Structures are given as C-alpha cells and as structure tokens.
C-alpha cells in the first residue's frame, strides 16, 4: 500500500518483512537496514530515502511481521532511463543526477556507511528529478577490524576487489557509481558478466589487464587466468560521454581501490563545471 498524508500531501509506502519464527528471529538485513536508516535519519539528507516508522506486529504462532514505512518515490533510475527517448538523457541532466548521487554517497561515507548494493534499481528518482539512495539491506557500518561478507553488490556493478574477494571498503560504492554513470549515457549496463570470472574479463577488456604489481596478493584468482589486454578508449563503450565525463569515469573505474577517486573528490571534478 501507499498513502497520501492529508496535511503535507507527502506520499508514504510500506515494505513488509515476514519472518518464520523458528529461525533466528529478524533477518540481519532488516535489523541493519533499519538501524542504518535510523542512524542517518536525524541528518534528513535530501539524497537518502527517509524511513518514517517501523511497526512490529505481535507474533502469531509461526510468523512475525515488521513493516517499514518509507517516504514514497515514484520510480527508480532503471525505469527512469528506460523511459528516456532517443538519443538519451541530456548531459546536463546526467550531471545533475550524478551530482546528487555522489552527494548522497559522500554523506554515507562520512558516516562510515558502505551501501554495497548500488545499482539503478536502488536509486530512486522523484517526479521532480530528486535522487534518493535506497535499499540498505546490504549496507554496513565500516569499522576497520571487521570481517566482511565476500559476496556483495549485484554482479554487473561489482568492483574488481569484491570479484577477486580481497579486502574492500568505500571504493566498492564508487565502482558501482561509475558503472551507473556510464549507463546514464548508454541506457544499458556497461559490464554484463555471466559469472565472476566473466565479469572480470569484461572489465579488463575495457580498462586493460592490471599490471602484476597492481594485482592483489591474497587472492585465489591469479592474473594468468586473463589474457593480456590494453585499455581501450572509454569513448568506444560510451560514445556520448564528454571529455571531462570520460576522465571522471576512468577515475571511478580505476582497478586499485586506493587509487580510485573518492565520492568527495569526485564532486569537485571539472566534469561538474564543464
């Protein structure tokens, strides 16, 4: 259901989680998503979806139900891009969407929150073109000594360090954002792998096979698994992108996470003042 508030005119929407009580209580993703959104809500950031309330209902003998009341947003970026007529989004609109996306991400990272599942379906766009990051079920509060789930982010938006199952942190969200940035121009995903290895192969076909020195040590997949390839001009994959846009995109799609641009620095990139 969704509802309109008679006073403010604002729309809210319900997201219900049903849990079989014979398990270990509420799912991790529900506990984390709500805890994170409650942590962030006091800042009321314009680019983060707002959680309005959480309503738990008394257990019946075999299930519990928790209902999350969110602010309602009409559509996500996937449907938004599908509706765009040829030749695609004007670059000024892409610039505006990316600025808002990075603003939301800078805010998350400055609160040590990794989203870990950025993709067009989890980026909401209101009828007035306001971007809101949503779906924090996979999100995590970063602390430097933490064991991390190795498999996060939907395959096509997954960064090389996650695909290689080595350590990861905020740069995983920047990689996903780079893939989404390219998709705003192409109106179709950039790297559509069918498996982890295939996804890596598609990535290296574009950014080139990293050097031996850059290859992380503690990974099972060795560099020899991939044929040597040079980077190809990013404009071959994203012909509509501007010069500064191509620069920014390559900084987001940098193999080494420590060399990848941060959300904060990306906001200062000349692409946004081009």
């Amino acid at each position: 259901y969704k509802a309109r508030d008679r006073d403010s005119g604002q729309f809210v929407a319900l997201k219900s989680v049903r849990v079989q009580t014979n398990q270990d209580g509420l799912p991790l993703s529900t506990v984390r998503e709500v805890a994170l959104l409650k942590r962030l809500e006091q800042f009321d950031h314009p680019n983060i979806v707002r959680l309005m309330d959480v309503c738990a209902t008394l257990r019946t003998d075999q299930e519990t139900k928790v209902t999350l009341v969110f602010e309602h947003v009409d559509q996500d970026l996937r449907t938004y891009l599908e509706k765009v007529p040829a030749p695609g989004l004007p670059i000024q609109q892409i610039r505006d969407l990316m600025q808002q996306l990075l603003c939301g991400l800078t805010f998350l990272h400055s609160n040590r929150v990794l989203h870990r599942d950025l993709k067009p379906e989890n980026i909401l766009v209101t009828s007035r073109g306001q971007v809101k990051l949503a779906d924090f079920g996979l999100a995590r509060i970063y602390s430097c000594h933490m064991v991390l789930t190795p498999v996060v982010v939907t395959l096509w938006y997954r960064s090389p360090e996650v695909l290689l199952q080595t350590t990861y942190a905020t740069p995983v969200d920047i990689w996903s954002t780079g893939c989404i940035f390219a998709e705003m121009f192409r109106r179709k995903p950039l790297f559509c792998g069918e498996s982890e290895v295939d996804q890596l192969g598609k990535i290296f076909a574009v950014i080139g096979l990293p050097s031996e020195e850059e290859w992380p040590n503690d990974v099972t997949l060795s560099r020899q698994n991939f044929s040597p390839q040079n980077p190809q001009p990013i404009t071959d994959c994203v012909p509509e992108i501007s010069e500064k846009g191509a620069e920014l995109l390559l900084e987001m799609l940098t193999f080494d996470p420590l060399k990848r641009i941060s959300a904060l620095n990306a906001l200062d990139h000349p692409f946004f003042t081009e």
Partner: protein
Amino acid sequence: DPNIYCDERVLQSLLTVEDRYVPQGPYFKRVQKDIQPFMRRMVATWMLEVCEEEKCEEDIFPLAMNYLDRFLAAVPTRKCFLQLLGAVCLFLASKLKACQSLSARKLCMYTDNSITSQQLLEWELVVLSKLKWNLAAITPLDFIEHILHKLPFPEDRQTLIRKHAQTFIALCATDHSFTMYPPSMIATGCVGAAVCGLQPNQSNQNLWGDNLMELLAKITHTEVDCLKSCQEQIEQLLTSSLKESQQQ
C-alpha cells in the same frame, strides 16, 4: 580506508551523533527497583565471557551493553529477566556487527537453558521497539582509530596502545559508573590510560603527562579536567579489577 580515517568530517559526524545513544539517565533506584549495580556487573561479565568464548568482533560487547543500559533506563525490569535481556542485547548486537551472528540456540545454551529460544525471539521485538530500532549506536571503539591516527606513535606502539585501549573499553562497559559518559570521552580516557600504562620510550618523552592530555582532549573536544578524572577513574577500575582477579 583512507576515505574514512583521514576525513575529519567522519570524526565530526561521530561526535555529533554519539549523544543520541547515551542512556536517558541513571536508572538504579529510579527506574529499576529490583536490579542493583552488582547484578548489572554480573550479567555484563557473563556477556563478556560469551563474546570471548565466541571470538566475537570487539564492538559487539560494548554495543550490547549500550542496548542493555538504554533499555533499563526506559523499562522497569524484574531481576529474574536480566540475563534474558542481556542475551537479547548480545543477539541484536551480533546481528548488526558480526559477519556470523550468534544463534538463538547458542545464546540459550550459554544461559544453561534457563531461557528458551521463543522467549529470546519474543524479547527481540520488544527490545528493538523500546530502543526505537536505533541500534547503530556509537561506542568508544568507533573513536580509537581516529584518535590513534592523530598521535605520533610508531605502528608497533600504536598496535599495543590499541589493544590495551580495547581491553579498557570492555572493562568500562562492565562498570555502571561509566554508563552516562559520552563514548568519545571513554575512548580518549582509555587511550590516555593505555599510553600512560606503557613505559615512555625515548621517542616520545615530550608526549607525556599534561601535553598528552591536552592533545587527547583537543582531538575529541573534551574538557581536559573531565578527561583527567575519567582517566583516573579508568585506572582505579583497572587496579581494582586486577586485584579482584588476583584474589580469585
């Protein structure tokens, strides 16, 4: 991740948010008529033992104690339910912070099966709702890296200071007199106690005593006097708990 530990905004954001998760007030004799400080200490010690036995991540115990104190500050509770409450707080803290969360069955086992899984799961919703689902609380551990990052110690010494500070933080969580302190102050006091507890080596003679205090106080915007008394309290707690363990 340098985007997190080198960014001043992250520390400022922690300092902004931390007050929101401090219990609303001291609860013994006010909200709690049946529960006394020694009971809280016994349950806290039991919870710490469970975390050590299960090799939980460092921040799970202080986080669970934050939930317990916030719940007790809001809801009058019978002493016979105190261990159940402790188990639920561990259950929730491990869901938020652990890669593999503690199972309901295992937690019941650690109470010698004096509680059932069903009771644990029912109370999970009650505690969540009473805490208004605000589980992402700030603990003193959240400040340690930010503080160490600003202290001019070599890596090996930092590792030692970090380890001692983590131990002191867990110790403070077992003592109710620290319940109302902001986590940043406890963290700063624990780092100060850890640095002072280690013999000064030549490289940082100057970083001692008052100038250490000044520097630490500046990092987390704490009053130097408050920091001093907090650190002294930590050192007294450390001394008394060492004595206790020697007697045992």
